[in-house]
């Protein structure tokens, strides 16, 4: 599942951050701010119009992400160890 599809207030963990083709640095920036495999992630709320941007808790930090950014992040269940 991708982060933008996650319902509000459900906690998952980051599985993978995909690269955006024409701007590969985006995925590194996401990693810098804490989107690293295994980190806990929750969607706290969505904006009024079209649910974009979303407010995300990653680890202990809170970030506003646009759907476009959230689409790059794959999430999985907390218990799922691989």
């Amino acid at each position, binding site marked *: 599942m991708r982060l933008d599809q996650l319902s509000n207030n459900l906690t998952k963990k980051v599985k993978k951050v995909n690269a955006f083709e024409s701007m590969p640095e985006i995925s590194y920036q996401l990693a810098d701010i804490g989107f690293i495999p295994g980190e806990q992630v929750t969607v706290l709320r969505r904006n009024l119009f079209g649910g974009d941007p979303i407010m995300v808790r990653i*680890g202990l930090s809170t970030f506003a992400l646009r759907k476009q950014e959230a689409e790059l992040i794959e999430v999985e269940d907390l218990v799922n160890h691989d």
Partner: protein
Amino acid sequence: MTETAIHFFPKEPLIALVGNPNSGKTSLFNLLTGGKQKVANYAGVTVERKEGKLVFGDKVLRILDLPGVYSLYPRSLDEQITCNVLLGRASGEKRPDLVLCVLDATNLRRNLRLVLAVKRMGIPCIVVINMMDIALKRGIHIDLKALETELKLPIVESVGIKTDGDFSVREKLKEIDFSKNSLAQLIPENEKVDSYTVEDDSKVVNGILQRMGLDSVIPDPLSDKMDRVLLHPMFGPLILLVLLFFIFQAVFTWAELPKELIEQSTDWLGQIVADVLPNNWIKSLVINGIIAGLGGVLVFLPQILILFFFILILEESGYLPRAAYILDRIMGFVGLSGRSFIPLLSSFACAIPGIMATRTISNVRDRLVTILIAPLMTCSARLPVYALLIGAFIPSRQFKFGIELQGLVLFILYLMGILGAMIVAWVLKKLTNKKESFHPLMMELPNYHLPSIKNIAIGLWQRTVIFLKRVGGMIMFLTIALWFLASYPNPPIGSTGPAIEYSFAGMLGKLLAVVFAPIGFNWEISIALVPGLAAREVVVSSLATVYSLAGQATNTEEALVPLIQQGWTLATALSLLAWFVFAPQCLSTIAVVKRETGGYKIPLIMLTYLFTLAYLASFITYRAAIFFGLN
């Protein structure tokens, strides 16, 4: 030909503060250095450089506040600067003798990764755990001794917002003698690894946190509660709107008293000078040129400070990025992201810091568009002009809910600028290609904090100094230059009109008045607009100088009001207001745009479109006003 620059650095030890954004680094910097700060730019780039001094008896330390970064991988301009300074590669910059790595105690998870990156720099380092008080309140107990062992670095704690919250940091810095040997002991040991990834660092950090029992995730309950109201899908935007409206009302009403005080002092000074000086050209220069000119501008310092006061509070409290979150959709509609909101809001104070703040926008197109529309945000330099015209032509009338007519007109002028900016951005969205369609937001919403009085006071003080320097430098120069142009050559013997009509300025003004006649500007306004190109607020002092030399004995802005009330129609006043919403009346902005975009293309586009918009807006306003009989 290339030259190798040789720099001579002050001999005092240089200490650099490194930390994540929102780690309270700048608060700590303010505590350590107090008001003794120098704000400038790094050589060649527009990243703000803040340096201060910390003095213990005869020991003086230079403290450098580096830009906040999430990593030391040089992706953004801020990160490049921080990296280069730490590596000793920044031009004109000495490699710091010691780094203070400032961490937010409530978010060690993310902040510790930066420590690992700093350690790899092989530079003497001390870790400062900031916001210890908040961490304790939230039940986060950090065993500093254990963390010292884990990181193999000395650690001190601090509370960035308390008066003596930097006590431990000061004590630690007092201890160090900054000799080569003792500094060498502070260089962290590193296992030699050729490459590392963020994931590797994250594993190391998680290991440390697990061993210290800090690996559970405890968010800030208060911030979450406040967000439930302030970011409520319905109430959030409403609260933001009310807040902005309140700020603009306050800018006008709160400033009344200090404004009167400044006016009275200028009058008093003018009287004294008039009594003392002999009746010759020097007297004319001092009274008509300097006192009339500068007094007219100084009067608006209170309003500028009130606006900055609110911007600083919103910034310090953590609300500002949330406002950007709320407005992201609207910005997206015109092809921008919420990231553009903070530069644009800063532009309400002054377009220059606003344009510099666009560096945080990683999308090149978004950044250029934000730069192009930044001058449409009503900057504080426009306030003197607006205040003069509104005060002279719009009656003060009270409506329900504490709404006041003059404040309302001001609010409308601000809205016009915003609306204009949105239309321009929307047009640019349609014109530019859609290939590069990623508009990153990725903006941190930090926990709410009570703003520290000290930080606000220092911020306001820096603004005051910048404004007074402008008044004393650029504005003083232009005022004197205009006085000269408006006073010479002397009128021919036997002439009947006021002397200024025969001067250089008079001739120029009459020439320009032909161009400006269709939008209702007389030749006095046309003259004043010329020096006003350099800085908007000069227009007020220029009008004062022009009218004062045109015969009517006036030496302050106060005396200008009845004169323009008699001389101008309401249509002219409204047209001039419309002109100032759009016109690029500021040389320094154009200069900064040229430096930021690295060429003449963008500044030229900016000048052209702004002048066109201004002329159109004034034309429509003037004609409409005449049509509705406001002549």
